[in-house]
């Protein structure tokens, strides 16, 4: 059926609320308002205020309450409106959610799903344009997912809800309006493997989330120049599916990592370092990174555009990786 990324996430939420009485939603404006990105629109009316809970502006506490509710036998789905506000909840996520299973010697588990919108590109300026997926991907004890397709928007949530440990799901805000076809019986997806979104021979473009569309567009453009780019979607940011990355790069012998996060200390560097360790002798050129320029994201369109990875810059970076011809 024709649907959108937004509707796919909503369908996943509705499905979870219908099938599991332990599931409830909690977050700012998920109820009456219908969700800052209208993802949970209609769910309050359908499931009532006990299971669709509008939270006050208290990120640290409602995320921590999600942890406690998970300890108490529930399956909370907490929406932190955007990654920008999740900084206020990091202590709960890093020091409690990620550690309790371990610190308790395995007695406790925290089956908590935290969803948040991420990314830039809508002229929201420095405080509302973060991409901090790499921070979360650094933390042992949590899983980090980045659905970039309708299938994953629909399927990652139910799969995450089957896991006994905390999962953080990043939804790039620019994807909510993405339209496409989704199988009527679409549901849970596997979470462990990166996906080859386009096959290619000459280089591997590795990306995730909101950048996938740009990279696929770049690959199409490169094809017109007879450059065959394979496009890999990481899907899971922690753990990384290193085997799939390495297998692809062993074939193409060249890799470009595209990440909307800042370059220094970001996820692209991790991918590059992993390829250094496991594919060094198969590389015909150094792994290249194309990331966001290192400045707070500016409001002005031309400045923001210049700061973020774009199809043209991806194409140029890919060309630069290949031997001159």
């Amino acid at each position, binding site marked *: 059926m024709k649907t959108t990324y937004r509707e796919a996430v909503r369908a996943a939420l509705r499905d979870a609320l219908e099938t599991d009485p332990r599931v409830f939603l909690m977050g700012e404006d998920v109820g009456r308002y219908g969700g800052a990105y209208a993802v949970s629109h209609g769910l309050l009316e359908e499931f009532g205020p006990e299971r669709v809970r509008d939270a006050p502006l208290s990120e640290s506490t409602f995320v921590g309450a999600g942890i406690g509710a998970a300890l108490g036998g529930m399956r909370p789905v907490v929406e932190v409106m955007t990654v920008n506000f999740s900084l206020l909840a990091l202590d709960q996520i890093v020091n409690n959610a990620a550690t309790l299973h371990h610190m308790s010697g395995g007695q406790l588990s925290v089956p908590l799903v935290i969803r948040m919108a991420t990314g830039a590109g809508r002229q929201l300026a420095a405080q509302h344009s973060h991409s901090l997926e790499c921070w979360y991907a650094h933390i042992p004890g949590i899983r980090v997912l980045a659905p970039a397709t309708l299938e994953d928007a629909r399927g990652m949530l139910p799969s995450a809800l089957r896991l006994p440990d905390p999962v953080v799901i990043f939804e790039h805000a620019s994807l909510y309006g993405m339209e496409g076809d989704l199988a009527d019986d679409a549901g849970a997806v596997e979470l462990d493997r990166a996906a080859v979104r386009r096959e290619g021979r000459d280089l591997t473009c590795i990306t995730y989330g909101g950048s996938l569309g740009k990279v696929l567009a770049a690959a199409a453009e490169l094809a017109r120049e007879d450059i065959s780019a394979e496009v890999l979607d990481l899907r899971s940011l922690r753990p990384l599916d290193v085997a799939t990355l390495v297998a692809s790069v062993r074939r193409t012998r060249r890799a470009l990592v595209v990440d909307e996060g800042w370059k220094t200390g970001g996820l692209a560097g991790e991918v590059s370092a992993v390829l250094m360790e496991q594919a060094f002798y198969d590389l015909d050129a150094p792994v290249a990174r194309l990331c966001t320029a290192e400045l707070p994201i*500016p409001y002005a369109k*031309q400045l923001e555009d210049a700061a973020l990875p774009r199809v043209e810059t991806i194409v140029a970076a890919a060309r630069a990786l290949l031997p001159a011809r």
Partner: protein
Amino acid sequence: MTTDATFSAAVSPAEGATAAHQIDLLRTMLLIRRFEEKAAELYSAGKIRGFLHLYIGEEAVATGVIQALTPEDAIVATYREHGQALARGVPAGAIMAEMYGRANGCSRGRGGSMHLFDVTRRFYGGYAIVGGGLPVAVGLALADRLRQRRRVTVCFFGDGAVAEGEFHESLNLAALWELPVLFVCENNLYAMGTALGRHQSQPDIARKAEPYGVTSASVDGMDVLAVESAARQAAESVRRESRPHLLEARTYRFRAHSMYDPDLYRTREEIERWKLRDPLILLRGRLESQGALPAERLAALEREVDTRVAAAVAEAEAGELEPVEGMLDDVHTPPAR
């Protein structure tokens, strides 16, 4: 929490504000109103992008409070800060140019609507992380205390911000260290789509000051004279005693939370009820009943304001775009300085 639009102002209106002064207040509120109506129009036209949060309906709060400040005093505001900026005297053209993302904008196009700055007017900006401005205001006041400057720092924030831990931490720290911060809560009864009664277990915001030993008051935020006199009393005591004060201004936003908001969480009736107490209509009515605002005077005022708004738009339209090459210049302060 009832959203009934009638309040007994906890602080009585300024006695005998001159007609001239009242007309100045009306001019400022009118400027904010017309400026934002134009901004909304320009947003729909795609000239302004990103988030745009309108202050329409709340003009009396910024206008009245800022009357109580001297040029040495400081202001910290939120992402809904056009009103504060205009009332502080930040040029309308510089604000409009900022929303256009132009080089002549008050933040050189870096900040947009949510991040207006004007250091010459000690306007320390719009903060878009709810609650994030409060600690900064506390710190500005701490600097004044340490330098023995008798200044006030006014910190504007919404009812939703009251739920954030930083509200609690900032009131405690400001009171504990005796810092001259005037905390102004713009209680417009909603945090986005969440009504006050659904985010506060006890909705009387003035009472939130008690456990810190901080004095507080509530005022009818639709009555600019009441706001001004409450703010003058509050700022006066903050300055004199170097102690914080919490002022709750009960107000209402007539427009949606932002241009993205379908505004499904409140009734038309509620909005219409509040519009009966439109701060501009209230002040105009008072002036007219005093015979102090003949029709032609009002018309002249309207023309004056329209001209200023038009000039602001022209200035924005004429603004240059910041060159992409200079993009990285403002990440760190140049050593030169």
